[in-house]
């Protein structure tokens, strides 16, 4: 029978114990373990959900401010100081807007679609390891579960496209289905490399395996290409600009959410930002060492000269806060990157979109896994696996292992790029020639 590893902090049973003593009940926490895990999961999940929603609301304002500053404008600054309450005002406005259901639309599907689109992103918040303890559900197959759920949001989009009885939304829905399918494969492949390294799919373990200074993180030295592929695929999964075909304003009059007004539109709108936040968080968890600080030691550790493991009570709380700080900093780095890309790049055409994924991203991710496999399981002539020579995991190993790894990566990736550019430029040359 699956016995959940007791994944709650030790102070929880002591408090629980004190409460029960008041009522004079003696408790043996061993048989209460699973209840406490569930209790802890619920507490953490609500805490995270609130924190995530607040950050999503902040993200909407951040996007408008960042895009404004990039085009030499001021951005919203009327509602509240520096426009802080702008998103709240938008929310209230959308709340009071009339909620129109178009004639001939399938009422049930029309109302279900936004909920279906929002559901997976809400579930993601439970799986993100914000800090070592602030992880609601430490699923052993966390990574797999994330990508299984993320394909559910596409159903919501296609449903919205079909149910709103509008030709533009139908086109938007079809496009979003095609896009999500073709960009989920590179997404999963990118994470496959990381899972290969840590040996377990539990996201908490993946983050723990990236302990140590920043070159210890997967995305920096070991699998940078996966970071690149994962970031591009998240842009596609979340319909951000280079890939925002499903709701292309200039063509499809904002695609699937053309007919949505009021709170349903707000749900779509917030779900998109929540998905961006969740995907950036996963990006950080998988590739940028989750809540670890870039210079190996936590600031708190440097201040108090104590090891992180022995910290108790308020120091532990301080450590958690610092972990949350590092995690949020990295996540917002990716969110800023997504907004920066939105300000610059134009939209792709449907055929380019598919071509880019099937002809470029997926072959790249396959080759990437091939390289990671070499790194992981190659055996040196002396019979030892390269892994224990890798400077990253065992400090102080010889320089030669560094050279081996870099040579392998260079050869494989260089070959790939030349091959791909020959392939792609032929296509363009052919197109230029026949003009």
């Amino acid at each position, binding site marked *: 029978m699956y016995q959940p590893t007791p994944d709650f902090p030790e102070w929880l049973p002591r408090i629980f114990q004190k409460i029960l003593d008041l009522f004079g009940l003696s408790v043996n926490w061993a048989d209460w373990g699973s209840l406490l895990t569930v209790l802890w999961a619920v507490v953490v999940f609500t805490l995270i959900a609130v924190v995530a929603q607040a950050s999503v609301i902040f993200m909407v304002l951040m996007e408008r401010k*960042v895009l404004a*500053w990039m085009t030499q404008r*001021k951005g919203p600054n009327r509602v509240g100081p520096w426009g802080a309450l702008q998103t709240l005002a938008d929310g209230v406005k959308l709340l009071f807007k009339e909620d129109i259901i178009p004639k001939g639309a399938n009422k049930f599907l029309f109302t279900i679609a936004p909920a279906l689109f929002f559901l997976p992103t809400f579930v993601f918040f439970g799986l993100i390891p914000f800090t070592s303890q602030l992880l609601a559900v430490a699923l052993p197959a966390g990574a797999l579960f994330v990508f299984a759920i993320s394909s559910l949001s596409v159903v919501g989009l296609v449903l919205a496209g079909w149910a709103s009885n509008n030709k533009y939304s139908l086109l938007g829905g079809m496009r979003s289905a095609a896009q999500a399918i073709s960009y989920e494969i590179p997404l999963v492949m990118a994470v496959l490399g990381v899972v290969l390294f840590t040996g377990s799919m539990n996201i908490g373990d993946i983050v723990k395996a990236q302990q140590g200074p920043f070159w210890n993180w997967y995305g920096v030295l070991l699998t940078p290409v996966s970071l690149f592929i994962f970031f591009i695929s998240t842009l596609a999964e979340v319909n951000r600009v280079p890939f925002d075909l499903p709701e292309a304003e200039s063509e499809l009059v904002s695609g699937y959410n053309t007919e949505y007004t009021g709170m349903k539109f707000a749900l779509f709108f917030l779900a998109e930002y929540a998905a961006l936040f969740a995907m950036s968080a996963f990006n950080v968890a998988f590739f940028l060492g989750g809540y670890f600080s870039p210079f190996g030691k936590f600031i708190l550790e440097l201040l108090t000269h104590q090891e992180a493991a022995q910290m108790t009570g308020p120091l532990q709380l301080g450590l958690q806060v610092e972990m949350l700080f590092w995690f949020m900093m990295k996540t917002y780095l990716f969110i800023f990157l997504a907004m920066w890309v939105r300000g*610059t790049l134009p939209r792709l055409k449907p055929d380019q979109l598919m071509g880019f994924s099937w002809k470029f991203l997926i072959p790249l991710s396959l080759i990437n896994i091939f390289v990671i496999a070499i790194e992981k399981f190659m055996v040196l002539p002396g019979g030892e696996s390269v892994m224990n020579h890798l400077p990253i995991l065992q400090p102080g190993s010889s320089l030669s292992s560094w050279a081996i790894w870099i040579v392998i990566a260079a050869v494989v990736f260089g070959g790939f790029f030349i091959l791909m550019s020959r392939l792609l430029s032929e296509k363009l040359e052919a197109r230029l020639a026949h003009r």
Partner: protein
Amino acid sequence: MSTSPQHHNDFTQNRVLEGLKEIGKGMSTVLSHYFRPPVTLEYPEVMPDLSDRFHGRLCLLTKSDGTDLCIGCQACARVCPCNDLIQIEMHRDAQKKPVIDQFTIDLGRCIFCGNCTEVCPVDCIKFLPDFELSDFSREALVLDKKDLTLSGEESDQWRLVRGMEPLVE
């Protein structure tokens, strides 16, 4: 004889890295704007500085002592593209001097083209750099003589700003 835009063969070399470099260049330009001061104008607090020829609200200038300049010759009414937009009623008093009873301009239909200010023989109807003209009803947009006429000092101020000497006689 013509500078034809650069030729297209420079796309054949390594396109993937070239593409990334170009995207990087474009993004660096966009980011460089991030640190430039905003050029937008915060309207209600900061008023735009308008040129003295700005086609804002129409007004009727007067002499320095406030007597009317308009002689009721209907030139402005006749040259206005919207036909019967300016209505003038006048009569001649004992000394054959024109007295304007009513001078209404319907700002609701006026297109601020400036034809009237050009043909006025006595330079009486002119523009003010005032563009906040919205109102709550169409009737309120019909300005009558009282709203249009500037006082003596205002007229002289108007003329001073545009480098014309005050009209004393």
